[in-house]
């Protein structure tokens, strides 16, 4: 046993590598799910890397291994003098409520939730608007008139994706069948591709031929199963079209990278308060690239662009589930 101890310790120490950088440089704290989740956290990483390449600056980064480390890591970065500190994930709202008041001279950026403190910038996204557009695409691509959604956890944020998606689909086809499932209620729900895959194959056997996954690493299993079964899938957060070219219909983009890039660029003196990234500010959208352009017909993109313009101009409003916990399309 004594021989094993140092091994186990060094393994956990290795998992907690902190990027080296001097004080006063910006810092980025990834949420559970990890830096390379091909989704939310990876988008943040890409934004930070873009800033590094363009400015030649350096930044600190840290990956959380468990929920218990939230406060500890935020404090550690603040103590080390990093400024600004970008913290990823809605689950860090209580973290910043606790930590930010203790470091009034440090600017914090919270991505995906709102904390009302003078030194915190809260970046939130209009996920319902982006999901509305991919919902339209899904309804137009579906031949069985049944589409589905796999969410990581049934929480307001994820349900807002589902609700926007359903509204978009109903806007195209009021009678469309929409199956909504969630993977779990523990943090593992974001990292269980096996379960994602089982849920997706269940939905497909119920007739769904477009599956939208908003479930972090679990979504990779969903996308894989969609390809295996020969139906379409829709990726989330980052552009996931390249994962299964020809099967991923599109990806619902959240420009998390832009939010991180902006925060790093503006530095410690940034304006705080709530920043809403919506369709109008290009903060959300849908991805079209060489991997999926042949899947989106001219007719489809015309309809979606029209809806996009209508949402931006305010002619069309997409209901946000988070405002009143109801969804007109369910």
């Amino acid at each position, binding site marked *: 046993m004594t021989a094993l101890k140092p091994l186990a310790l060094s393994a956990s120490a290795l998992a907690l590598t902190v990027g080296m950088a001097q004080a006063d440089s910006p810092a980025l704290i990834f949420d559970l799910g990890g830096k*390379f989740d091909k989704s939310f956290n990876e988008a943040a990483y890409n934004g930070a890397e873009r800033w590094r390449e363009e400015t030649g600056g350096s930044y600190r980064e840290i990956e959380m291994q468990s929920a218990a480390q939230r406060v500890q890591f935020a404090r550690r970065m603040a103590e080390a003098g990093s400024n600004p500190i970008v913290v990823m994930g809605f689950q860090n709202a209580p973290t910043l409520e606790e930590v930010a008041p203790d470091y009034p001279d440090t600017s914090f950026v919270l991505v995906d939730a709102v904390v009302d403190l003078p030194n915190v910038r809260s970046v939130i996204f209009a996920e319902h608007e982006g999901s509305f557009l991919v919902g339209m695409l899904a309804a137009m691509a579906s031949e069985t008139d049944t589409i589905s959604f796999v969410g990581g956890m*049934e929480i307001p944020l994820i349900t807002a994706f589902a609700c926007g998606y359903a509204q978009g689909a109903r806007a195209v086809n009021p009678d469309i069948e929409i199956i909504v499932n969630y993977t779990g*209620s523990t943090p593992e729900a974001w990292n269980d591709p096996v379960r994602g895959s089982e849920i997706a194959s269940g939905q497909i056997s119920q007739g769904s031929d477009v599956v939208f996954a908003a479930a972090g690493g679990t979504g990779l299993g969903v996308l894989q199963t969609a390809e295996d079964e020969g139906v379409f899938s829709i990726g989330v957060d980052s552009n996931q079209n390249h994962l299964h070219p020809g099967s991923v219909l599109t990806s619902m983009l959240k420009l998390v990278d832009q939010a991180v890039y902006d925060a790093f660029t503006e530095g410690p003196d940034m304006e705080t308060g709530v920043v809403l990234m919506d369709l109008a500010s290009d903060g959300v959208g849908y991805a079209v690239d060489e991997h999926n352009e042949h899947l989106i017909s001219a007719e489809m993109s015309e309809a979606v662009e029209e809806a996009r313009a209508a949402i931006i101009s305010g002619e069309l409003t997409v209901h946000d589930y988070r405002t009143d916990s109801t969804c007109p399309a369910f």
Partner: protein
Amino acid sequence: MDWIMVVQVLDSTLRLATPLLFACLAGLISERAGVFDIGLEGKMLAAAFMAAAIAYATGNVWLGVASAIVASVGISLLHGVAAITFRGNQLISGVAINFLAAGLTVVIAQNWFSQGGRTPSLSGGGRMPRLDLPFADALRDVPVLGPIYSGILSGHALLVYIAFLCVPATWFLLFRTRFGLRLRAVGENPAAVDTAGISVVGLRYGAVAIGGVLCGLAGAYLSTGLSAGFVQEMTAGRGFIALAAMIFAKWRPWHAMGAVLLFGFLEAVANRFQSIEILGVGLPVQAMQALPYILTVVILAGFVGKAIPPRAVGTPYVKEH
């Protein structure tokens, strides 16, 4: 809930029960020989990683399965060295293995593939093919028998069938062979076995190694059969569910199969029926997802009766001089 849906749920049950069954039998054999095996989770995880990594590198899923077994047996032997040879605390050694696997798989995966602790997605020959049983197509339209045979039993990866064949094999090994008799004796009264001139240490190593092979198959099936690649912590607690199933089955192979099928069924149901209404009352998603765990507690606390482990489990054997 129609007939087709029942078939789909049972089909999914078989797939989800397979890794549990391998792991459960692994724990069963190890504990029957008197060695606690808390490290099922870690061994499965390491095996899942090796299977995916080697299958990706070579494009051959069976090489992946072989290296998964090697990795898992290697870790089992580490457990053996700590718990049998050096008579360390078996529980702590198992917990250490879980941590070791959780950390090492991610670090090695990051080093080899630089994709943040995951392996690249497998495709083609790197994934476990699904087998159609003979006459599955011909029997598809036969009433009752057709859906059961073609819909539920046919069309799984080879390892699913191997897992279920392991049940009678384990039973035979434990209860009908000399090795099995000695193995059970070593878990109940190692001093008696030693008196008979049989090596306690050798038998326990043998049991732990067999457990390693089974965990290797469980992990390989997770990453190459059930999904297409490794992601960190992908076992998601299945090793512990397998331990619960083992206690529920009171360390008996046939009962173990029943227990893992029940757990697999609950997981399949939780996946499939999330927004159902039962008798006009809508059940929240969370309730459905918590169901397998609630039932685990209820079953273990209420229905299992007295589960008596092998008497010598957890105690290292010290030879009298």
